[in-house]
């Protein structure tokens, strides 16, 4: 299973802070997004925003990043710390 987390405004839009998704061999973040966007129009819209950042195993990643089983993936808006 892949653990997926959402933060900040994205979490508020989706109404979910984390969920689990079935893993399959060769899965990338792009594959995961296709899967998540199918949930509803809201998920489709929110996750299609151009500025969504991705982390895999707590490191900045891209849609091409491959996922291992039990990986943690996070999606979030551009950061605003400091």
């Amino acid at each position: 299973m892949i653990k997926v987390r959402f933060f900040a405004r994205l979490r508020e839009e989706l109404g979910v802070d984390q969920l689990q998704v079935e893993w399959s061999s060769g899965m990338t973040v792009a594959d995961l997004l296709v899967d998540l966007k199918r949930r509803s129009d809201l998920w489709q819209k929110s996750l299609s925003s151009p500025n969504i950042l991705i982390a895999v195993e707590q490191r900045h990643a891209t849609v091409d990043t491959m996922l291992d089983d039990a990986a943690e993936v996070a999606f979030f808006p551009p950061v605003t710390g400091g």
Partner: protein
Amino acid sequence: MVAYSVRVDTADFDANDLLTQMHRDAPQIGAVASFLGVVRATPEQPLESLYIEHYPVMTEAEISRIIEQAQQRWPLNYVQVYHRVGRLAIGERIVWVAVSSAHRGAAFQACEFVMDYLKTRATFWKKECFADSERWVEQRASDVEKMQAW
């Protein structure tokens, strides 16, 4: 061997205590450059509080990676970062970065570098809370450009 400390916490910090810690942990310093970020008032309507969310563990890991990059670019002695999260009022301390080095050039530059990278890479999100509304702060293009210019 370069040392550093990273702390992300709701608790307030005292710059003097942090500098004392730095002296204790890395006594061979000639120059210390530092930055303090404070919650500022919002121009249009009174800010009730600033709420800072973060991605626990990734935040600390990302800041550590930023510090490692700084240490590769400049001859540094010690880097110290403290970033608060949770609910803060106007005037409260948000972030502290301090860098020590043998000489001031590296200390000044590395301090600015760490702040520029922290603002665009470290997983924090600020939300402005007003009397009857709230708004997530947007990342500024100028912050991204500044980071990319290093």
